[in-house]
Every structure is written in C-alpha cells, then in structure tokens.
C-alpha cells in the first residue's frame, strides 16, 4: 500500500498539560477506579451500619480531633497545591522547588497525623466489623497518602537534579492533580468515620 503524506506534524509540542497529556488521563483513570474502591468501601460501611442494631459497635465513637486536624491540613494544603500546579504550568523551577518542599512537609505531616488517628479510634480492627471498617477506610486512604507523598518526595528530589525540565513540569502538575483527589476522597470518609457515629 502506498503512503501519501498529507500532513506535517513536526511543529507539535512534545509535552502538554492537563487533558492534553495522556498521563493526566491515566491519572484520571486511576482516580476513577480508586474512587470506585473508596465508594464501595463507604458503601460497605453504610451497609453494615444499616444492618447493625446499634452503632458504633464500640464504647464510644473515635476521637474526632486527629481527623479534624487532618481535614484542616488537607484543605489548607489545597492552596500550596494550587500554587505548585500553577508554577508547574509556568515552568518556574525555583518556585516549583520551594512549593514542592512545602508540599512534601505537609505530606509528611499528614502521615504523622494519620498515625495518630489510628491510635484514637478506640477500637481495634479485630474487635468487630465496625473496627475492621474503620481501619480499612483509614488504611485505604493511608495508602493513597503514602503513595502520593512518596511520589511528591521523589519528584521534589528530581526537581533538584538535572532532570528538572520539560516534561517534569507536567509531572509536577499531574502530581498536584492527584493530591486534589487525595483531599477529595478524604472528605466523605471524614464525615463517615467521625460524624456518622455521633449522629
């Protein structure tokens, strides 16, 4: 079969941001399926809640302060996250570096808070299904926190090397995109874990 060139593509850019970039779509895909996982876990919680004659199946609901702190930190982190996203778009390396360090610190802070949260649930995972659910929900979200914080740390390190150019800025923006998901996924869980049993 003969090929008849009709279009020249040599002028196209080699990377893009947001929906232009396949990585963004890939991230979105993973968010969708992880979001589905969260939704189903939340569904499982509500299902067992609905079946149980009393709730929570513990002497008292978990201490909400660590969770509230977590929520506050995550919500506040949306701002630097937005800045780092914008700096990525602007390909402003020093700014990206600074903000990534901020985000790394915030990330590490959330890991610590989450650890504290586990200790304040007042129920063990092997005590009853309620405890199991709490640990599962927190654990599910914890894995996402760890993953994204790990990603942020590696990216931060990367942005201080010679690799800090071109497409890496798009990665910064995708990383910021994922962090929104981590924040967004947490909010319903926060309500579920800390406030539904107090209803």
């Amino acid at each position: 079969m003969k090929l008849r060139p009709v279009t020249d593509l040599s002028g196209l850019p080699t990377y893009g941001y947001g929906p232009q970039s396949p990585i963004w779509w890939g991230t979105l895909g993973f968010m969708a399926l992880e979001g589905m996982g969260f939704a189903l876990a939340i569904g499982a919680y509500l299902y067992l809640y609905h079946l149980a004659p009393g709730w929570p199946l513990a002497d008292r609901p978990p201490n909400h302060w660590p969770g509230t702190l977590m929520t506050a930190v995550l919500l506040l982190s949306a701002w630097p996250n937005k800045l780092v996203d914008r700096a990525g778009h602007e390909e402003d390396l020093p700014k990206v570096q600074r903000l990534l360090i901020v985000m790394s610190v915030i990330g590490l802070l959330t890991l610590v808070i989450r650890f504290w949260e586990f200790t304040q649930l007042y129920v063990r995972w092997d005590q009853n299904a309620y405890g199991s659910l709490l640990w599962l929900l927190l654990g599910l979200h914890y894995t996402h926190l760890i993953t994204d914080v790990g990603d942020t740390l590696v990216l931060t390190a990367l942005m201080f090397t010679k690799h800090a150019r071109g497409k890496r800025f798009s990665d910064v923006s995708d990383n910021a995109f994922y962090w929104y998901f981590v924040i967004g996924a947490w909010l319903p869980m926060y309500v579920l874990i800390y406030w539904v049993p107090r209803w």
Partner: protein
Amino acid sequence: MRLARLSALLISVALAGPVFAQSPTVTPPLSAAPKDDGQWTMPAKNFANTRYSELNEINLSNVANLRPEFTFSLGVNRGQESPAVMAGNTLYMVSPYPNTLYALDLTKPGAPMKWRYDPKPEQASQGVACCDVVNRGPTVADGKVFMSTLDGSIIAVDAEKGTMIWRTKIADINMGETVTMAPFVAKGKVFVGNSGGEYGVRGWIQALDANTGKPVWKAFSTGPDKEVLIGPDFKPFYDADKGKDLGISTWPPDAWKHGGGTVWGWVAYDPDLNLLYNGVGNPGPWNSAQRPGDNKWTNSVFARDIDTGQARWAYQATPHDLFDWDGINESILLDITWKGQPRKVLVRPERNGHLYVIDRATGEVLSAEAYAYTNTTTGVDLKTGRLQRVGDKEPSVGKVLRDVCPTAPGAKDWNPSSFSSSTGLLYIPHNNLCMDWESQETNYIAGTPFVGAEVRMKPGPGGHMGEVTAWNILEGKPAWVIKERFPVWSGALSTAGDLVFYGDMEGWFKAVNAKTGEVVWQFKTGSGIIGQPTTYRGPDGRQYVAILSGVGGWSGAIVSGDLDPRDGTAALGFVNAMRDLKNATTAGGMLYVFRLP
C-alpha cells in the same frame, strides 16, 4: 437515656442522703430474727437473712480505732466465700476445696485452733465447680456444725470435739453436681440444694434430719409436680404459675431433665407461717434457644411447708431466662406496712436487677423496682407478675448481642445484702456490669459444662463495676450509692452502731456510715475480699468483726485460677472485665478479726 438514668440516681442520692425517718413500719419478724444474743451461728445471721447485729460497741464514733486482733490462715488460696461463724466460744469457718472446717478457740489469746475437720472431698469434684471451688460456710445448731463439701456430702460435726456425727452423700459429681451452699438448719432439719446449673444437672433442694442425716424430703426444681412437691396446697398468686406439671410442659420434650434449676443460694424460714423459702437457679443451658418455654421452675422462689416440702406458692421472677439470672439470691423476711396494710413480705434483690417485695404468705409481688442499671427489662407487670423484656435485647444463636445489662452474674450475685433495723435500709452489695452475649449450640455430655454462650463482660455506665446501694424499701429508691472499681462480691453486714461493713476485691475491708455511705474506716487485707463479714460478742464481752480475705469466686477466678487475661471469654466472660484484677491483688486465704483497742 443512660446518662439521664444515672443522673437521676445521683440526684436521688443527694436528696435522700440526709433524710432518715427511722421507719418503724419495716421490721424483720421476731420469730425469724430473734433478739441478738451476740452470737452469729449461721451465715445470714438468722432465719430472716437480715445480716444485722444489734451490737453497737463499735459505732460511728469509735470505728476509726478499729484494729486487727488476730488473723488465721486457712491454707487454701482460693476464693473465700465462707463467713466466720461464731457459736459458744468458738469461731468456725470452712475453707474452699478441700473444705477443711476450722474451729478457733476464742477464749484464748490469739484464738488458737481448737480442732480441724478434714472431710477429704473427691479431688475430681474441682472439675465440675463452675465458678471457683468455693464454700459458703458452716452453720451451727444444737451443738453440731453442719457443712457441705464440694463433692456433695453434708456433714454434721460435733461442735466441741470436731468429730463427725454423720455424713450423707447427696450429689453425684459424675453428673456435674456439686454443693457449695451453706446448709440451712431449722426445725431439726438441714436444708441443702445442689450446684451445677452450668453442667446440665437437674436442681433440687433436700431436707435431711439434723440428727441422723437421713433424707426427709426432696423437691426437684423441674419435672412433674410429684417430684417438685407440688400438691393440692399449691396456690400460686399468678396465673402463669398455675397449671399441671408446668415443670415439664414449659420445656421442650425431656429438656427439663438437664434443665438446671439448682438451689445453691439462700434459704429463709418463717416460723410463724411454717414456710421455708428457697430461690431456684438458672435453667440450663444458658443458650435460651435450646429451651423454648418458660422453663419452670427455674429462677423462681418457692414457699414450702418446712415439714413436708410441699409447695405453698411459687413465683417465677425470670421466666425463660436469657442471661443466667439465677433466682438464688437471699430472701429477707420483713414485716411492713404497705399502702396502709400490714404485710408479711420477703424482699429479694434479684439478679435481673429488680428488688422484689413479695407477700410471703401469698406470693403476690407488691413492687419490683430496678436497683441497678438495666437495659434489658422495663420492670414487672404487677398484674401478671411477668417480667417485661426489652424487645431487641434477645440473644440469638451465632450473633453477638451487645451491651446487655445486667450481666450473667446479675445485677447482684449470691453475696448477701443486709437489712438494718436501725436505719430501715437494705444494704445491697452489687455489680455494675454490662456484657456482650452470643448464644451457641451446645451438647449435653454428662459431667461436662452445659452452657452454650460466649460472654464478654465490661463495666457498666460510669465505668465502675461495683456498687453498694442503700435501698429504701418503702420508697423504692436508693438512699445512697457507693461506687467501687471492681464488682462488690462480698456480703454486707450492718450493725446497730450505724455501720455497714463490706470488702472490696482489692482487699480493703471497709466500714461506712449506714446513713450516708461515707467511708469511716478501712483496712487493707492481704487479698481481695469476697467473703461475708460477721460480728459477734466475744467471750470477753467485746464486739468483734470478722472477715475472710482471699479473692476468687466467679469474679475473682482470674486471680484464684490464674486465668489468662488475654481471653476475654474466660471464666464465662468475667475475665474481660477483670483483666486488671491481677495487678490489684493476689490469691489468699486469711481470716481477719477486728476489735476496738
């Protein structure tokens, strides 16, 4: 809900505290509780079970000086539930298995051992004792000391010489039967029942001739009327207790044969009415799904003709028991004025959490107020006598039912309360526990436990596990409440010195102001206390107070049996609540006797 109830309780405590109209309308019948002679010959002091002494040498003003006069080791580090019983110039007590009977000579300084009698019960009997190898003490009457052994013998011992007069074997450990109760002696007969409600036994109470040990009559708690000794004289007050052979027809076929209904607690006797009152224990197995029906006559109280054993009336406090609420607690005989009418009543703090005031002539329930936190029942319908259950607090096989209050040991277990004639209050040592319960199908295998439930106990509302409640019977509410960290498993003793004595499971022996509940004196003994305090006038004319220290029993099994605190279901679920007890006390077995200097 819980909070509201609790605060109501607290407020009533605060309000009722200072009000002590000495109530002349509540007194024990003189025939059952004769004037105090300074002795303490039977565990509950008298036929009316008042556990009240008129001695008042030790009183509010001087109790702070109370100090130990002598001690005596029983040589067995298991739960000491025996009282120190005093008759003549001798102090008697029975150790837990191996049930050694000790007699101490009070006439000599330091009360040296006068004699000991070792009944040598079968070793294997320890295997069929559900809740520690306890013994609830001897009874002295007519120059004889009567005692029971774990393996089911009743023994009469010469009170002076310590020699055996007769010994009758009445229980078979191979069928799971043991005897732990103190023999009750009245009208020339010894009354005793079996233990083993957790082993699928069929409960009974027997009368033995006090002189020969020969059986006089035996009344089963389940089965045909003939064997329950229900005859033409039987006139129960409520319709639910009327009918033929209810001991069979309220059970699935043949289930009554292993249906429990043991008689292992307290017996009372009213000489005027010539009636003997005995409570009946829980049905077996605990798993209520295996025994649909009312399960008569478990958890009931019987009034029987003391001579023939024929039942006069019966009342089932907890039909179709769901949570091991034995009905063996003490009946305290009192004469009261109820709604303007003089009534002869018996007062029962039941395990189901209600304090029953029952007309002891007819079996009519006059009132049944909750004296402890309960979320499983809402009271008693006085028209039908029926306990009103909370619908969703019903266990099912294979599913954990959460937050059941009171628990399997009940709002109050066997540990006897005390009625003070001087304050008119009833002092109830009891529990504040809740539990999670799961029924399980269980096999009846003769000689092994027949329980069918997994239990996990925990502190009740407020986080404490024990309470001592001073109860105003006429008003149907508490005068004051003391909270204790651990369940109060010791009996109470009240005296004319306006004092109430009891011990806690950490080992503190306490005297409190009978009117206010204020702790006025306490002494730390060597081990947790689950015994029955007694008081007597010694040969020297002084007032003494005696208590056995030695933790154990069901609640203390974690220490006395050295159970593993990791398993919350151990000791039928009590370990879950008692995990800390191992850090608070160790096993012991020591008599402490106190006197003013």
